[in-house]
């Protein structure tokens, strides 16, 4: 019996060696797999962290339809995030929140020229495979959807498409980067129209980075090593972050941003750009608000321009906010997937 199994295994092994030989012979004779251009390399780290770099100082807007995506593009968004429901509605509807309709994502991709992102559930390798297959530009492994793996996130090194992940503090960010995330965002508390949690997350992030940088300046390597160990993150990554004084990947603010002033505040706190979820299409004035938030994010360091942006919208039209303190622990989205 055992002998038979071995015989089978050997046959399989021979088959794979045979395949490898065929591949090597083809390579020697100059036959290669199709590539867009001779000698071009796709999906490299430089290419994957390159896209988020191009989004800097910009605003990515949550949309659920082609019409909303076109409004976002006309308003000057640097990208859209296609969802089945806006976070505010996810909260209301309950149940399991999943990746958006493939048909809707494809329709959005064929109607606008700016990058199209979409969300996958935390740990859902196969939703990510599908999004890469249809050509989504950026994948958000998001706590707004219902996680499918309580222990692990997706191994993002395996994908050619860049990923963005959420974090509440530095340890979480370092773990996501070590798993291959090309971009980080604050988690905030999505769908509340309340920016308080995003503020908390940015201050936690930069507070910890400042401490690490101080340790590096005084040559206290031990503290950096201890920190990395506590975080379950590579020490090289912690040391690099300490040296840069910021995360080594582009870092956006997300979660509860609803007004131009909210966007400017997050840029002032060190964000490289802004995600706006329910804030735009849950307001009464989406067109004006979208344009105003784009203006405020780009000119956050020019109070005159932020005033101009704030004048473009009315507080009476802003989305109805939810005080985070009134939410029960099980209603919080930010605690999903650490």
């Amino acid at each position, binding site marked *: 019996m055992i002998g038979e199994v071995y015989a089978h295994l050997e046959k399989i092994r021979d088959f794979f060696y045979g395949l490898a030989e065929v591949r090597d012979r083809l390579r020697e004779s100059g036959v290669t797999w199709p*590539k*867009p*251009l*001779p*000698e*071009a*390399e*796709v*999906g*490299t780290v*430089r*290419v994957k962290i*390159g*896209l988020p*770099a*191009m*989004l*800097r*100082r*910009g605003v990515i807007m949550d949309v659920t339809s082609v019409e909303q995506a076109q409004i976002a*593009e006309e*308003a*000057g*968004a*640097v*990208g859209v995030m296609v969802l089945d429901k806006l976070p505010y509605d996810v909260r209301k509807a309950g149940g399991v929140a999943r990746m958006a309709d493939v048909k809707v994502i494809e329709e959005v*991709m*064929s*109607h*606008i*020229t*700016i*990058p199209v992102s979409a969300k996958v559930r935390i740990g859902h390798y196969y939703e990510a495979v599908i999004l*890469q297959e249809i*050509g*989504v*530009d*950026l994948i958000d492994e998001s706590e707004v959807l219902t996680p499918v793996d309580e222990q692990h996130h997706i191994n993002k090194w395996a994908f*050619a*498409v*860049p990923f963005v992940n959420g974090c509440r503090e530095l340890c979480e960010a370092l773990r996501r980067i070590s798993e291959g995330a090309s971009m980080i965002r604050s988690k905030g508390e999505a769908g509340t129209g309340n920016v308080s949690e995003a503020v908390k997350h940015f201050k936690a992030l930069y507070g910890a980075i400042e401490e690490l940088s101080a340790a590096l300046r005084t040559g206290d390597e031990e503290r950096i090593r201890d920190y990395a160990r506590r975080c379950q993150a590579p020490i090289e990554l912690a040391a690099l972050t300490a040296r840069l004084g910021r995360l080594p990947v582009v870092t956006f603010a997300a979660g509860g941003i609803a007004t131009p002033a909210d966007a400017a505040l997050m840029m002032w706190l060190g964000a490289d750009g802004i995600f706006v979820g329910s804030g735009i299409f849950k307001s009464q004035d989406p067109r004006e608000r979208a344009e105003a938030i*784009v*203006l405020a994010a*780009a*000119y956050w360091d*020019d109070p005159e*321009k932020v005033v101009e942006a704030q004048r473009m919208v009315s507080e009476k039209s802003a989305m109805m906010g939810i005080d985070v303190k009134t939410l029960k622990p099980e209603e919080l989205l930010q605690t999903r997937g650490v």
Partner: protein
Amino acid sequence: MKAGVLALQGDVEEHIQAFRKAAQELGRSVEVVQVKRPQDLREIAVLAIPGGESTTIGALARRTGLLDALRDAIKGGLPTLGTCAGAIFLAKEVRDSVVGETKQPILGLMDIAVVRNAFGRQRESFEVDLREEGIGALKAVFIRAPAFTKAWGSARLAAPLKHPELGQIYAAAFQGHMVATAFHPELSTTAVHRYMLNLAKT
């Protein structure tokens, strides 16, 4: 001398770094400033327009009056580098590979035709070794990059690539004091920024 980077949207920090490193390599003292208002253009000797979203950069520039100020300054001879979105912003003819004609605000100064997103989506973004006349060998990073298909007047195309569908296309263009690249030199090299600093003789 002052070098400026258009700082409305895009990878501004990467260009600032590239200018700083290039100046160091050339042993020149260059102050790099962000250009966000028309008056920021007054004292600069060379300008870079970064990669980003050309629709966003165009919309913001039009809103803040920077579009006309930029056009005047560059027409007046300000040495200018446009990378990716910046190149689209400089070109006279812009088409998108998916939606066709676009009505986005552009500067329209270089006699070149550009196809946006020519290589496909982010999944198809790539890096490749290129050799560019006057600049030398460099690693070129293409992110949802455009391609130059045509030049007229005094514009000249460079860095040819064979594209499986578009045929012969080009990744760089030169016209007097203007340089356009479809790729992002700021992500991998200082060669193009050194070239720009040498163009700005003051």
